[in-house]
């Protein structure tokens, strides 16, 4: 009886191993795909994170977010948008428009 339970556990564990290997390979392929494009800008990102990640000069980022020259709040975009009374999607669209307008190898 115990051997049967162990055998069943062994089969389940082997199945889980195969399952995780397939998933890891899938996510790795998706991640490495050169046509995947860049990760979209999301509401959880902070202004500094956006500037660094998307290589946006700080003054340009501050202009889009209507911030002062020394102003780089450590807040996610969604909280900042709420504080400014702006829809976060509007800011994300402005960033996307900025990135689209930029030369490809900028």
């Amino acid at each position, binding site marked *: 009886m115990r051997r049967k339970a162990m055998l069943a556990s062994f089969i389940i564990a082997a199945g889980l191993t195969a399952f*995780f290997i397939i998933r*890891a390979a899938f996510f790795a392929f998706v991640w490495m795909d050169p046509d995947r494009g860049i990760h979209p800008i999301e509401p959880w990102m902070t202004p500094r*994170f956006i500037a660094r990640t998307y290589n946006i000069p700080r003054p340009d980022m501050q202009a889009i977010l209507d911030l002062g020259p020394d102003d780089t709040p450590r807040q996610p975009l969604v909280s900042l948008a709420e504080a400014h009374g702006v829809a976060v999607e509007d800011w994300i669209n402005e960033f996307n428009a900025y990135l689209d307008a930029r030369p490809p190898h900028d």
Partner: protein
Amino acid sequence: MTDLLLLWVSDYGLVIISLATLLSCFALPMPSSLMMMAGGAFAATGDLVLWQVCAGAYVGAVIGDQSGYFMARRFGAAHLWAWLQQRRSSARLLSQAEALLEKRGGWAIYLTRWLFSPLGPYINVLAGATHMPWRRFLLADLLGEATWVTVYVTLGYVFGTQIEELSDTLGNVIGALTAGMVTLLLGRALWQQRKPHAS
């Protein structure tokens, strides 16, 4: 869900990272690796301070592990363990587990902090229930959690833009390694059981 967790990290910073690593030590489904990577990514941009992210994650993880160990040691798990050992069906398996922990306990604790991390909470309870010497547990735990925190915060710091993709891939790699190791151990136990029947 991932976005919400990342939002918590950017909103609450160190507190949420510490809480995530602490709760993950109790086998609660907390994506603490992703949150540590997010902490590393925010440290790279200057939104958080690197050493504080590391310290916050480390303290949470070590407190969580020690709590699991002492709760098992003080409150009942030892009695449960003794009772299970008296039962014929489970006695041999538990004795083998205890012998393995006795022989390679330090490595088991160290490796289940980061490489086979899904097993960590259960190994904490096992170590407490079998009264593994606390100093030995603590040393292996401190080293293992230091490795875990360093690896994930560094990955977040370096791959800041791709933490979600990295987390998806790495989470499954860790899952495959853990399930693979359990498969090997069970396979070995089955093989050893087979021998008496064969002779």
